[in-house]
């Protein structure tokens, strides 16, 4: 099969770090990610199935891995070499478009054949699984980071039935491939505990930010949703998806002050807000975004880290003095809705993708052979007017081989 494989290779990793610093996405040219002909992954168990990816998205966490900016935190919970790609719409083996599925990539207890399952998996909180480095599979927090399962950036992979969600016949591949990141966004939005009338700030209007805006509008009672966006296409989409205000990142502090009517410290320039937004959802995860999030949230407010952070240097004095809650929102599982009902995040995501026409966020697709172009495009999506970049495997020759 044809696959992009990420191997453990220290010199190449070092080259990727340097290249990625010079130009985001450039790690793909010189780093450990290589296009290879590989044997298809073996089925890890009798109930596993083989899938043939149709589209597979490039996520921010993928870009961080390629450019070597990911935290070393991940080392014990990934296994090399792995085939990236965890945003996947695929065909079951032997079908071609008639039996499509979306993969829920978290490799929890069930996929690892661990019985009894951990407490988190028992609750349906798959993202919090405590056994992602144990069981029948090699370590890997998700498909796309585990050497046993393969990933979406290939013509073949394997999945456990518990990971598979059928795609309705009338849903496009583009819409289906956006379901996984939409589930992340919904989980983040619901985890933020937003109450009626809350003012919510979303930092970042990349894919995750835009999907979070849509999720906040659809599944929370947020009153005002303020979003930062750098580029015209992002601004337009943020507004379409439900942001009440779209602001340039440098203008956020002043905009939050105006909107919330709070006082500020500083003589015309704002050093610090006295109050602020009720909730901030950070969809970037950088040092600057975390700092900004803490600066614009009100005392006793909540900051949700939905974008993947790494090492950041942040002054937490304000968090302490203002009793701010900073918390992470990773992946998905099962959500409790306002009416008390429990639903799988992926089910909610399917609804939202359809309702808000989120398939339109897939801006461009590339064949595997143009992976450096694809990664470069994804790394510069904002300035190039793009949102989600994906690999298109549908026309790969290897895909049709038995």
């Amino acid at each position, binding site marked *: 099969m044809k696959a992009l494989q990420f191997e453990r290779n220290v010199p190449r990793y070092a080259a990727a770090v340097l290249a990625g610093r010079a130009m985001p996405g450039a790690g793909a040219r010189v780093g450990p990610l290589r296009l290879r002909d590989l044997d298809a992954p073996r089925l890890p168990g009798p109930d596993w199935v083989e899938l043939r990816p149709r589209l597979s998205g490039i996520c921010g966490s993928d870009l961080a891995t390629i450019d070597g900016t990911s935290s070393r935190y991940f080392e014990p919970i990934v296994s090399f070499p792995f085939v990236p790609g965890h945003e996947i719409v695929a065909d079951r083996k032997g079908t071609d478009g008639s039996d499509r599925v979306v993969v829920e990539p978290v490799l929890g207890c069930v996929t690892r054949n661990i019985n009894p399952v951990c407490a988190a998996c028992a609750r349906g909180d798959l993202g919090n699984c405590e056994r992602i480095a144990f069981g029948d599979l090699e370590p890997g927090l998700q498909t796309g980071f585990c050497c046993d399962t393969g990933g979406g950036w290939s013509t073949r992979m394997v999945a456990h039935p518990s990971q598979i969600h059928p795609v309705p016949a009338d849903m496009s591949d583009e819409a289906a491939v956006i379901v996984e990141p939409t589930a992340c966004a919904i989980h983040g939005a619901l985890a933020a505990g937003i109450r009626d009338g809350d003012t919510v700030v979303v930092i970042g209007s990349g894919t995750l930010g835009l999907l979070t805006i849509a999720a906040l509008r659809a599944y929370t009672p947020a009153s005002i949703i303020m979003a930062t966006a750098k580029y015209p296409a992002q601004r337009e989409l943020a507004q379409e998806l439900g942001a009440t*205000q779209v*602001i*340039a990142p440098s*203008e956020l502090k*002043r*905009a939050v*002050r*105006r909107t919330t*009517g*709070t*006082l*500020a410290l*500083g*003589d*015309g*320039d704002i050093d610090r807000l006295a109050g602020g937004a009720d909730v901030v959802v950070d969809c970037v995860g950088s040092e600057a975004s975390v700092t900004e999030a803490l600066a614009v949230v009100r005392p006793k407010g909540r900051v949700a880290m939905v974008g993947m952070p790494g090492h950041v240097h942040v002054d937490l004095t304000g968090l302490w003095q203002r009793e701010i809650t900073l918390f992470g929102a990773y992946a998905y599982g099962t959500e409790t809705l306002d009416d008390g009902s429990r639903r799988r995040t992926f089910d909610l995501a399917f609804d939202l993708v359809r309702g808000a026409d989120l398939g339109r966020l897939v801006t461009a697709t590339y064949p595997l052979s143009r992976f450096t172009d694809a990664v470069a495009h994804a790394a510069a999506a904002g300035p190039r007017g793009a949102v989600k970049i994906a690999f298109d495997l549908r026309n790969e020759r290897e895909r049709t081989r038995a």
Partner: protein
Amino acid sequence: MPRPGFVLDVDRATPPVLFHHGENFKLEKLPPGRSRIIYPGEPLEPLDDIEGAIHHALVNPHGDSEPLPALLRPGMRLTIAFDDISLPLPPMKRPDIRQRVIEQVLDLAAAAGVDDVELIAALALHRRMTEDELRHAVGDRVYDAFAPHGLLYNHDAEDPDNLTLIGTTDQGEEVEINKRAAESDLLVYVNINIVSMDGGWKSTATGLSSYRSLRHHHNVKTMQHSKSFMDRHASELHSSNWRMGKVLRDSGVKVFQIETTINNNVFGTEGPMSVLQKREWEWTTRDRVAFMGMKAGLDRMPARTRRSIFQSWRAPHQMTSVQAGEVEAVHEVTTANVYKQHLVPVEGQTDILTMGLPYICPYNVNSIMNPILVMCLGLGYFFNLYRGKPPVREGGVLIMSHPTPWEFHPVHHPSYIDFFEQVLAETTDPIEIEAKYEKSFAEDEWYRHLYRTSYAYHGVHPFYMWYWGAHAMQHLGQVIIVGGDVRAVRRLGFKPASTLQDALEMASDTVGRDATITHLHNPPILMADVT
């Protein structure tokens, strides 16, 4: 005998004309055969004996008023209000006119045994004046005698304990002014009438009032019906202030109005800046060398240095008249004296109006000319410097030259930043802006805090700047800014152009290829009397 202003028809022999361009200048060639330049009058002769003229005015009042000495008595409460930092432009060399007038008023008050005297900078919703600025306006002697005792201070339009509602006009306009001024036995208001808009009932009804009162005339409808606001009899802004003045008078607020006019001597008759008030074809070789040298130096300087140099300029304005007494009678005489300096007869309208905007307007003294102020200076003040009809036809094009930096003074203009970033990003329509945003800015607690305790313009002030241009926006078909920051110009809703020639080319889309052009050669100030 100073030469009056006049209109020059541009021909092939006409030299390039001076355009102010913020803290710099440009020389531009206007198309011959279809362009004309309105030049201001030369500076009128100043009064020979300023102190004597002031005294004469105080004891020989106009209208139904007794001489000032007759109005002063022991035990009375006397309040002296004076124009703030926005006048004159640029700030004048010491001694400031206000100082000269106030010293004489105080001498008379002292002679009459008046010992309850307070002085108030009538700044309405403008920023508070600093100690240095107050000292410059009233002089050290007055400042040191009153300020340390809390008897010389800035008006605070957000101090509910020091405002009083006098009443409402027959059109329902609330008249609320400074309580001390209202409850005094006599309010003496000291004006510097740099343009015909200044003075009259606008001094007290605006300068000492609050948002509650100001909103009745500082609004889009009023400004769109003030054609122009420099012509009191065609200005709804003034009609409203005059109605408020009637309420003040009828309620017993006793005002002794002192108005002064100054000449056009902005840049002096000697020194490197003097060339700026000469007509280009009269520039000597020395003038040209001085100008080119000055421009070459400015071109090489950082913007901050240029700003600092220009803002430190103190103009050698000289007083041309002083009159005192009853408000309306005084103002009639003052307006005639302002017109003597500023009015230039102009025949008919043209398709395009060009202007070079200088570094200063009423709201950036010792500060930064931000993009909103650029708009206000061009579409507000300069556009409205007409009587009769605008020198540019309805649907015509306005071309302004100014660098229009995306830059704000955070201490002076905090609400301007938010207005620019948040309001103008959404709409530039003054009616929509007024309806949707004005109240929230006007009542914003932080802006109120900064206005009262720091040196910030009131939260609503950028709205007024925008409304000031509402008549021009309604009248014009297109506005182009030459040499401005492209993003800032677009945020204002205007078109950016790199050069005047580009701008004229762009304008031809609106007014045709053979469009006629009028250039307003201002400053020094002129007012087009268009028939």
